[in-house]
Each structure stands twice: as structure tokens, then as C-alpha cells.
């Protein structure tokens, strides 16, 4: 069970499981990540846990959409369990999800989502009930408003219905789950009355309710699309200006509504439709006035943010994900080369990438870098696998050794995969470091936490200030500042992990769309 047998991605996943769900789930999860499909009986022998613990761990993971099961191929009566890698990785993105929902909608939707993330899978009523409970401390919203928020989330596909038992499921030992396309986002009728009643009674659990069979979960793919869109809009805003970013945001929305989420190219949207959307959206006056120009500047830009696909309806515009993510991935790689090796190396890297195949002499002439430096940077890039070599032999000779051309080129998918692995490693390192810092100073942190809670309680009880001050002095200021420093370090590391995740998203998207286009 040592980590050296797991790839970097799986290491990250197992670290996440350990962190959020505890060690037992972590162990079971690591085993499944390593071994793929496994039947229930294999797991206790390999992990050394009891079968009860394993069953519980699996149940927790299935509830949280991290594990799926299906009938084994060899034996139809036994189920095999598999990890859903992407969902485990998305655990790190939960804070981003909440922030996005809050930004797009508001607090009530954010609470709904938080409850749903905590519960894993739940029925609509349950979610509404618990959210109302949470919000009731401020006595703000009624369940019907929450119901509407829930519907809004479903309409925009942020939450999705879980597959239900198939019709012949009871006949099989291993049940199959399925769901129809049109039912995926359909919100059932929810009875508000029982919920309101339970809330008044300050119940902690909602009892039986009418829609308990219809279960919902978070739709990770939709959130990925949203995260990607944020990156694209930022790129557009950098390329032109912020108003262009606004326009691009609207166009992305139109594309999303009309296209199949799995296709690498969106369906074209016509000029008139875009113009209507801009008008309806109450955008800035500059955008309305120069709408034509903004559109034109965006689709003539070399980054491929918008492609012009035809002339019907005043002009058809679509987006080729593979092209635009190739440009974004290249921008990421450029930035990494720049920070690691310097601007001269960047010039050589971009030159080789744009011109496809180059000889050493050509490179140093076109890049106008002195010969010695050019050679040094070329070999450094080669060493770190940013450049690849192709040898072509000149002439044929059976006797003398044949001179050969040595050409440098950049094989983009390979370089992206290498960088992606390095990014996973970086993310893992940040997590390990954070864990290490917190466990090392655990005693100190616990003491501080206890002291803080005691102080809070006493303040609530109305104890005079001098006593409180005396109590807080039991902890010397040096220790207090150390605790603060540790918290700051931990925050920095969390931010660092979020940053690493952003690069990982771009590189993963590039590889995903590249494989789709082929």
C-alpha cells in the first residue's frame, strides 16, 4: 500500500480521500485506485481491514459518487467496484464550486449546493429541508423560495438526477441503474407543507416524503465547463479588453445552451442571435455601440476564441475547443519554460514549436542568440523533455559513418503529458507539506483551539474582561504568533493547490479535446 506504486494522479486522489473521509476510506480507495475493478472479497485481504469496515467505506464512497459498481464479467452474481477517478479529483474543486454558484446566483443556492455536496446524494426535499435549517438561524427564507432556487440549479444543469433502479433490477443479484435523457434535470413536485411543518418543530431529520425515490447529485461535468469558461473569458479580456470579455461570456452561454457538451466543436450561433442576446442582457453601452467591431476583433484574433463558420443569418460563429485549448496549453507551457529557464530559452522553445523542425544552427540564427548560449539552452530544454530530437541520415554509405541531420521539434501531446504529471506531483507535494506542517504542530494548534473555544464560551456567559485577559495570557504571545504563522502557511498552501489545479484543468482539457478530434 506504499505510495510509490501509485502514479501521481492517484497519489493526489488518495491524499484527498484520506483528508476528507478518513483513513479507512483512504485505504480502501487507494487499493481500488491501484487495482481497478475489484470484488468485495478481495479488498479486506489486501488492505487488512475487517469486512464490516470495508463495507462501510464502500457505502460511503458510493453515496458520494466516488465508486460505481457493476456485475462482474466472470460471474454475474457478484459486483465489482471501481473508483470514478474524475469525481475523486474533483473533491479539491468543491470550494471553487461554492464560490462560483455564489457569484452566479446567490447565498441560498450556495447553501443548497453545500448541503448536497455534504450529503453526496439526496432527494430534493431533504436538501431543501437541511438548507432551510441552516438558513433559519438568520430566519431568512421559506422552503418555497428554496424550492425555486433548487429548480434554477436544475435548469442550468448544475445538479443532475442519479440513475434509478432499472425495471428488471430486482430479478438480478447485482442491480443495474439507468436514467433517461429527458429525466435528467426534471424537478419533481415537492410538497412544501410537510417541510415547513418539520422546520417549525425544529426536527433534525425529514421523515418520509413523496419524492424520496428521486435522488440528486452534483453534476461535475457542468462545473468543469463553467471553470473552463472562466479561463476563456479571462483570456478574451486580456486579448482585447473587459467589454470583449463580457461579450464572450454571453456568446459562451449561447453555445452551451445549444451544443452537446461532449462534442469538441460547438454548434454555430448566428450573428442575429448574438445581437439579440446582447440587447436583452442590458450590457454596457459601449458594447451595444461597437458590437460589430468587438465581434470582429474577437474572431480575427489568432487565439481562436471565435471561429467564423459561415455566412447565414449575418454570420455563423462557433468555437473549436481543441484549437483554443491548444493555444491555452501552449501559453501555459511557455510560461513554465519562461519561469524555469529564462526568456532566451522561451524564444528557442516557441521558435521550434512554431517552425516545427529546426536545426541547431538555424535556431541560433533566427533567434539571434549567441551560439554558446543557444546551445546551452537547447540542451537544457532537451534534458527536461521540452524538446525532442529527430535524426535523419544524409546519404547512404556502406563503409563510412554517415553524417546525419539532427532536427529539434516539440511534440506537443507528449510535452503536455509530462507537464501534467509534474503538476500532479506539485499538487501532491503541496498537500503533503500542508499535512506535515499541521501534524507537526498539532499539539500547539489543539491547545490554541481549545483556548479560543473556552474564551468564546466565557464571553458568552458574561465573564468580566480581566479574567478573560488573564486566561488568554496563559498562552505566551510567541506561541500565538507561531499559531498565526502556521495558519497563514496553511492558507498559502491551499491557495497554491488551487493554482496548481487551474493549470491541471487547462492541460487536461487540451488532452481531452485532442483525443476527441482524432
Amino acid at each position, binding site marked *: 500500500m506504499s505510495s510509490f506504486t501509485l502514479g501521481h494522479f492517484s497519489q493526489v486522489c488518495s491524499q484527498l480521500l484520506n483528508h476528507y473521509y478518513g483513513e479507512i476510506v483512504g485505504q480502501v480507495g487507494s487499493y481500488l485506485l491501484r487495482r481497478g475493478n475489484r470484488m468485495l472479497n478481495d479488498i479486506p485481504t489486501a488492505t487488512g481491514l475487517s469486512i464490516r469496515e470495508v463495507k462501510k467505506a464502500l457505502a460511503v464512497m458510493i453515496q458520494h459518487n466516488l465508486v460505481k459498481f457493476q456485475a462482474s464479467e466472470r460471474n454475474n452474481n457478484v459486483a465489482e467496484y471501481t473508483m470514478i477517478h474524475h469525481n475523486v479529483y474533483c473533491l479539491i474543486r468543491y470550494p471553487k464550486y461554492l464560490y462560483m454558484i455564489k457569484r452566479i446566483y446567490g447565498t441560498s443556492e450556495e447553501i443548497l449546493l453545500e448541503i448536497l455536496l455534504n450529503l453526496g446524494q439526496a432527494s430534493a426535499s431533504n436538501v431543501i429541508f437541511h438548507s432551510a435549517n441552516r438558513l433559519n438561524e438568520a430566519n431568512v427564507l421559506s422552503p418555497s423560495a428554496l424550492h425555486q432556487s433548487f429548480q434554477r440549479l436544475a435548469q442550468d444543469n448544475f445538479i443532475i438526477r442519479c440513475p434509478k433502479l432499472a425495471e428488471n433490477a430486482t430479478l438480478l443479484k447485482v442491480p443495474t441503474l439507468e436514467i433517461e435523457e429527458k429525466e435528467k434535470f426534471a424537478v419533481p413536485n415537492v410538497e412544501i407543507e410537510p417541510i415547513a411543518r418539520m422546520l417549525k418543530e425544529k426536527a433534525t431529520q425529514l421523515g418520509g416524503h413523496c419524492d424520496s425515490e428521486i435522488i440528486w447529485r452534483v453534476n461535475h461535468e457542468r462545473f468543469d465547463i463553467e471553470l473552463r469558461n472562466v479561463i476563456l473569458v479571462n483570456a478574451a479580456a486580456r486579448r482585447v479588453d473587459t467589454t470583449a470579455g463580457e461579450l464572450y461570456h454571453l456568446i459562451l452561454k449561447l453555445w452551451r445552451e445549444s451544443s452537446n457538451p461532449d462534442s469538441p466543436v460547438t454548434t454555430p450561433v448566428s450573428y442575429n442571435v448574438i445581437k439579440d442576446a446582447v440587447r436583452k442582457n442590458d450590457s454596457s453601452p459601449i458594447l451595444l455601440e461597437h458590437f460589430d467591431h468587438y465581434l470582429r476583433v474577437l474572431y480575427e484574433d489568432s487565439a481562436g476564441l471565435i471561429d467564423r463558420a459561415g455566412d447565414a443569418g449575418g454570420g455563423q460563429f462557433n468555437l473549436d475547443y481543441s484549437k483554443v485549448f491548444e493555444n491555452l496549453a501552449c501559453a501555459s507551457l511557455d510560461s513554465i519554460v519562461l519561469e524555469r529557464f529564462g526568456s532566451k530559452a522561451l524564444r528557442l522553445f*516557441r521558435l521550434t514549436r512554431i517552425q516545427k523542425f529546426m536545426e541547431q544552427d538555424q535556431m541560433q540564427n533566427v533567434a539571434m542568440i549567441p551560439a554558446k548560449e543557444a546551445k546551452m539552452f537547447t540542451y537544457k530544454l532537451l534534458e527536461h523533455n521540452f524538446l525532442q530530437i529527430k535524426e535523419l541520415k544524409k546519404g547512404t554509405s556502406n563503409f563510412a559513418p554517415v553524417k546525419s541531420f539532427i532536427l529539434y521539434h516539440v511534440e506537443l501531446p507528449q510535452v503536455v503529458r509530462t507537464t501534467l504529471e509534474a503538476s500532479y506531483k506539485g499538487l501532491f507535494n503541496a498537500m503533503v507539506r500542508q499535512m506535515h506542517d499541521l501534524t507537526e504542530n498539532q499539539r500547539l494548534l489543539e491547545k490554541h483551539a481549545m483556548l479560543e473555544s473556552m474564551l468564546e464560551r466565557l464571553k458568552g456567559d458574561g465573564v468580566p474582561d480581566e479574567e478573560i485577559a488573564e486566561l488568554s495570557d496563559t498562552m505566551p504571545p510567541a506561541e500565538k504568533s507561531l499559531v498565526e504563522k502556521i495558519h497563514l502557511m496553511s492558507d498559502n498552501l491551499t491557495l497554491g493547490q488551487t493554482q496548481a489545479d487551474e493549470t491541471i484543468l487547462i492541460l487536461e482539457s487540451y488532452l481531452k479535446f485532442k483525443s476527441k478530434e482524432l
Partner: protein
Amino acid sequence: MALKVVIKKEKVDDARPRQSARDDDKTEIEARILELLRKYPKGINDKILETHMPNLDIQIRVDVINDLLTKKKMKLFQAPGTNELFWGLNEQPVSIKLKEVDKEENVVMRIIEEAGNKGILNKDIRDQSGLNLTTINKILKALEGKNLIKSVLSISVAKIKVYMLFDLQPDRSVTGGSWYTDGEFESELVDIVNQQCYRMLQQKAEAAKLKAMDGPLIVRNASFLSSKEICQMISDMNIVKFNLTVEEIEAILETLVYDGKIEMRMVSDGDERIKTYRIVETLLSSAAIVRIPCGVCPVIKICGTAGEVQPKNCVYYDQWLD
């Protein structure tokens, strides 16, 4: 019968001054004849000589012409058609060296002459002439001393000298154009010109942004500069002592394109297509991963959960978290 006594008189001295005067005259006449020859490149005949120098004693003229002929500074030829005899200026004083130098040296000279503008390597002289190394070196030193040939540092063959005739201008492929002095690549000059071009494009872009109220298309089109304009502006700035051609400026601008700082676009202006450039922003301000130490770590390959390099005691993390 008395013999007639003939008193042999010594040659009188006053003939001497006449001789020296004659010499002076001779050089003067030589010079005049050469001048005439240059003036009439197609050749002169006796008639023209007479008209220009009517007072010239025919004997002197003949002497001078003979001298010039032996010195090979002029030649005699027949005019096609009339078969008249003409005198012409001999343009190749080099062959006169035949007398002054050795035959071997002559061979070497001829080889170097053939190489023309591009010059020739020591090894190639050896191959072509078939002489051995020490002889060649001696000859080359001698010829250089006489200022007949010179050596130029070639950039293409890494600090090896090529030899060419003294008066010829070395070809661009040998000296490398404006960016090379004495065979050394002037990286500082390139950097300076590079930065200047970039700054100019930045200023243009900022000026263009002021027109933001006219719409983004106007802003974008106003931020373009053509390579000719940039060349003009750089020449006006007088950063470099010599003038830079448009091609050289375009080479510098291409390196900026490869830096990712500017983009190029071909625009047709009348009949020709010219290259225009403008500043562009990158798609990402920086790849997010470089903001953590692991993104730029030089030892990431050997980092792991066990061993010398671990995230737990990573020096870079310690620095970053402080």
C-alpha cells in the same frame, strides 16, 4: 700629308642636365599619356597623342611608350575593322607582379583572386595549389606584408580566417552583416535594438488605446506599425553608427514574435504586401502552476516521499512560506 687631328671632345656636362630634365619630362609625359589613356578608355592612337602633346619630341614619345609597354601599363591593339594601331590602358597591374614575386606566390595569388568576394580558406589553397603547409604560410605572410591580400574573420566557420584580395569588400556571408563585428556576434547591440523596437510598439499601442471610444477595431488597427516605419524610426534615433536595412529590422522583429510579445500581419498596400506588427497580450498572465515552488523547482525529478528531497523539508517551500 698631315693627319687631320680630330680632337675627341668629352661629352659635355650640359648634356647631363638635359638627361635629368628628360627624365622629369619623361615621368610627366608618362603621367599625361596615362591620363589620356584613362580618358579615352576605348584607346588612343598616334593622332590623338599628337593633338594633345604637339610639342613632344617623337623620340621621347617613342621612349615613353616603350617604357609603358614594358611595364605593362599600356598595351597595343588593333582596332577591329580599320586595323589601325591603338594604345590602351592595361587594367590589370596585378600581372605585373609576375616579375616581382615568385612563381609559387603567383599561383597562390591566382587562387585567391578566383575566390573573389567570399575569400578562401588556408586548407583550400593547399588543396588547389598542391603546395605544402609551410610554403603556403610563408607565401601568405609575404603577400600580406606587401598588402596584396588580407585576412578576414569568417563567422560561418568559427573564427577561421579567409584570404582575399586587398581591395575587395568581404561578402556579407563572411562578415555576417551588421550584427557581427570582427567575427563576434554583438548580442548587446541586438538586445538594444530589440528593446527599442518593443518600446516603440508599446508606445503606439498606448496611443491607440486613447481612442477606445471609437471602438476596439479602431484601437487595434491603430496599434500596427509597418517594418519600414520602424526602420525609419530606429535610424532617426541614431543608436547604431550605420544604417540598418529593412531586412535586418524584420529579423529583429521576428525574434520578438518568437518571444510571444508581438504578432505579425501581412497587409497589402497598393501592389505590394508589407509586414505590420503590433503588441499582443498573452492568453494567460502566467501559468498558475509557476506560482508554487514545485512549478519551477529544478530538482522536481528527484523529489519524493522518501530520500533527500522531500516536500516536508523542502528548502524552496521554506523560503516561499516565510
